């Protein structure tokens, strides 16, 4: 048997091996993709109801005398008014047969507790509606919402149903009159957290995440890039630098909760920065992302061909000019990719923020990096832990928003990389 025959004999086996390897690779990718698909579709299906809001249309009589204000009243006077009375009067007018105390309670709980503030804001916006009768669309209570969306099954036995027969009849009357509407839930994107599922929104957490990441970016990017450039281009090769390198790699592997403890001890207890504020959250997360970005930036700088440096130096550029005019721009796409990966990691982090008080109930939307705020993953956690059933769909919706945030960041990274990328 000569060599050619031998090779030909083994050829079949080798092709088979390759085929098996290729199909195994394909299966692994397919399985990973399948899991992702299951995850995303499960969350999306659960989240979809959260983007629809059930509303109740009522005819409210904004009688100036009853309310005790006029069109000329100032903001403070209007804020003092109990608008709940007007809404209750409207409900009572529509259902005059409701007399008993307990039944009245059922009737009044058809609309959300936020309805009175909704009406107040409407009046503050446009005082001319005072003294007239207006058709106003109020947010429905979470139980009504659940019933309309079918989360609560109306055919269940009364004993085991959250919405009892009496209330169900009221809702069905409203439904028949066409007073129940289902609209897109803008509230979810425009308001902060709430303990009422129908009023809760994601804006506070989105802005909290944004502020925190902004602080993180501003803190890490300059430091990490400077460190990477120094270590790659300027640092002498000695024991000391090796030691620093090893420690940067070690830092990347430190569990994130440790950074939270550090943040608590140093930034809050020693520097007395405010608790629960994005500024502290951002600094803590920047400690965590710093090594990631340094490592990514270093490999990006290392990947720039030495011929570029040599040419610049050969034409008389100083070391500094070589680095900042030629090496850094060439390495930028890689550095940006590393930065975004670091940021994405920071976006999903909760453990270190637990220690510095960002796991908190915060209604007001943060206006600056020093206001108390929470971030998206923490909002998911807080909602998942709430007893009200309506928060189930909100939790999934918040996860979707978090994923959308992440995809946007990655898209920016890809765009920037494509824009600055050079082929050698």
């Amino acid at each position, binding site marked *: 048997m000569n060599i050619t025959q031998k090779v030909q004999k083994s050829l079949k086996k080798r092709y088979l091996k390759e085929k098996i390897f290729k199909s195994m690779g394909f299966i692994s990718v397919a399985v990973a993709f399948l899991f992702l698909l299951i995850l995303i579709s499960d969350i999306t299906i659960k989240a979809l109801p959260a983007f629809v809001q059930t509303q109740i249309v009522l005819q409210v009589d904004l009688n100036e005398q009853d309310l005790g204000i006029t069109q000329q009243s100032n903001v*403070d006077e209007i*804020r003092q008014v109990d608008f709940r009375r007007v809404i209750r009067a409207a409900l009572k007018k529509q259902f005059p047969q409701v007399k008993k105390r307990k039944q009245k*309670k059922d009737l009044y*709980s058809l609309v959300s*507790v*936020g309805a009175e*503030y909704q009406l107040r804001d409407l009046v503050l916006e446009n005082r001319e509606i005072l003294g007239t009768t207006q058709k106003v669309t109020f947010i429905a209570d979470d139980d009504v919402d659940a019933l309309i969306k079918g989360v*609560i099954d109306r055919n*269940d036995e009364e004993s*085991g*149903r*959250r919405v009892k027969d009496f209330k169900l009849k009221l809702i069905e009357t409203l439904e028949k009159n066409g007073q129940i509407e289902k609209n897109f839930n803008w509230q979810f994107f425009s308001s902060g957290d*709430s*303990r*009422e599922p129908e009023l809760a929104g994601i804006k506070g957490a989105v802005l909290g995440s944004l502020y925190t990441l*902004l*602080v993180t970016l*501003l*803190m890490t*990017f*300059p430091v990490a890039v400077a460190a990477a450039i120094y270590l790659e281009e300027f640092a002498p090769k000695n024991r000391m630098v090796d030691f620093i390198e090893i420690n940067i790699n070690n830092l990347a592997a430190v569990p994130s909760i440790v950074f939270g403890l550090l943040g608590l001890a140093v930034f809050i207890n020693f520097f*007395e*920065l*405010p*608790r*629960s*504020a994005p*500024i502290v959250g951002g600094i803590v997360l920047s400690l965590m992302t710093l090594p990631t970005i340094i490592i990514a930036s270093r490999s990006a700088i290392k990947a720039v061909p030495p011929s570029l440096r040599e040419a610049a130096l050969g034409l008389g550029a100083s070391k500094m000019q070589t680095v*900042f005019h030629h090496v850094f721009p060439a390495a930028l796409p890689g550095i940006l990719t590393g930065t975004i990966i670091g940021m994405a990691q920071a976006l999903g982090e909760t453990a270190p923020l637990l220690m510095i*008080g960002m*796991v*908190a*109930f*915060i*209604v*007001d939307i943060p206006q*600056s*990096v*020093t206001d*108390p705020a929470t971030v998206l993953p923490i909002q998911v956690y807080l909602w*998942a*832990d*709430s*007893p*009200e*059933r309506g928060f*189930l769909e909100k939790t999934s919706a918040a996860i979707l928003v978090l994923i959308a945030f992440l995809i946007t960041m990655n898209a920016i990274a890809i765009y920037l990389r494509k824009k600055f990328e050079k082929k050698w």
Partner: protein
Amino acid sequence: MKNFKTLLTLSALVTSLSSLAAGRDYISIVGSSTVYPFATVVAERFGKSTNFKTPKIESTGTGGGMKLFCKGINVDTADITNASRRIKASEFAMCQKNGVKDIVEVLIGYDGIVVANAIKSHTFALTRKDLFLALAKEVPTGKDGELIANPNKKWSDVRKELPNVKIEVLGPPPTSGTRDAFVELAMEGGCKKFDWIKATKKSNKAKYKSICHTVREDGAYVEAGENDNLIIQKLQKNPDALGIFGFSFLDQNADVVKGATIDGGAPEFDTIADGYYPVSRPLFFYVKKAHVGKIPGMSEFLKEFTSEKAMGEEGYLTDKGLIPLDAGKFKTVQDAVINLKPLSL
């Protein structure tokens, strides 16, 4: 290069901003995760109906809250801490040591801890003794002073009248206040029914505690994490299992789970309020008197929390599952808040 400079200036700006944040214009509340769902409702309404900012509420657990609360008197520290048990003497001493002299105690109501299972499954009528015998690590034999590793595998082993199903109870982990309260109120309550164990309380308190408070670890008690919603979901999937959680979760999920009666008391609003249902605990919050008047909105917030509209019998907190105080106690609490009567232990 230019971008680099702007970035540096921006980061300098951010750091300078932080030094401005000394004064605080919102109330800071920390403490128990059991009180959290009630305190947050009050805070939200307070923020919406007044010109004050909405208070910030952290859920740190009772012990963690006390630490933050007692850290000191300056404005950076928390103004109010929530607690699912009364302040301990050691915590009170820590407060005193750090200059937090005047603390106002406010009892807000009660919380029931329920043992529940899927609505279509067996109906359980338990006693505290049953719970102890089913869940303790070691149970007494017939002879005084003798303990054996818990041999009970089925509920019917505990007591003949109970259903013939495997003991499987999903409950919170030891870090949870609900678990502490369950162990203290239900298991210890049942444990005390054995006379010789009750007698050891006087002679050897540590032994007494270890007998009554140690939960079995052979798989019959499953630590299901702090998330009560998860326990409820698991109960629906597993009709033989029982779950332990707060009353508000039973109240919200009455269509899928039902509570077991304990010592004849069903877990309902009225039975918990009048103490007929035995596994309930008081809920408190503690106020730093020195901060009233210093932090805007403190006295108004206290007034809102202790108003009839919130804590009263028909108040909005009862809609969230808080068991209200009776009229007499309610009046005492309101008076204490108006006068800011400091606590002395």
